[in-house]
């Protein structure tokens, strides 16, 4: 009946697709807001080139840790299908990096040029 191990696992422990989509949307919301905030901070601090992107990555890791322990209650597997989803969603893809660069350059320009 179930050919692969993954299908067998899915048949034994079915998931709710609406909740998966809902959780992913929640992460995306948190990411998009916090990325703009990181851009503001990077602009205020006057970071340039690589140090700004390092700041972005460190901040994203911080937000991931906060989400694991405060939003997911230390059990990401309860809310997400793969454990890496919480850490990688919207970090390098999507609009988060773009909004970070937007607010970064905006505040850098406002405060220094």
């Amino acid at each position, binding site marked *: 009946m179930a050919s692969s191990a993954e299908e067998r696992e899915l048949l034994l*422990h*079915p*998931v*709710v697709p609406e*909740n*998966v989509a*809902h*959780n992913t949307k*929640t992460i995306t*919301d*948190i990411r998009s*807001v*916090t990325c703009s*905030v*990181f851009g*503001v*901070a990077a602009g*205020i*601090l*006057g970071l340039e080139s690589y140090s700004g992107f390092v700041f972005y990555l460190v*901040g994203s890791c*911080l*937000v991931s840790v*906060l*989400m694991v322990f*405060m*939003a*997911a209650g230390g059990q990401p597997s*309860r*809310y*997400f*299908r793969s454990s890496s989803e919480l850490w990688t969603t919207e970090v390098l893809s999507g609009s988060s990096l773009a909004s970070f660069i937007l607010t970064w350059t905006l*505040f850098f320009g*406002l*405060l*220094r040029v």
Partner: protein
Amino acid sequence: MFTSTKSAALISVSTLLLIHSCYSAYEHSLISVPTNTLPLDVTLETLVSVFLLCVGIVLNNSQELKPISWSVWSGQLERERGSGPYGFLEERLGFLDIRGKRAEFSDWVKTGNE
């Protein structure tokens, strides 16, 4: 309810801190020569306000996550609402008395014709 007020307070306080550090950095850029680095207190204020703002934002969304496993999810729904996602299946009718229904209908037709 308590969490939402706490996170709202955290978000407003840290936003004020961020605005204040932004204004401080602007004033500093007006006074000093452009190559001068930012004072330590402004840097610290920015970092602390960003950290608090992140905590507030995550806390604000922390009630939103829903468990993805069917068993956990339906158990939670049954505890909170009294019926799970398949609750409508438990409120269906039993067997219909189809002979009784036909008899009622024929009586109604006969009395209507008279």
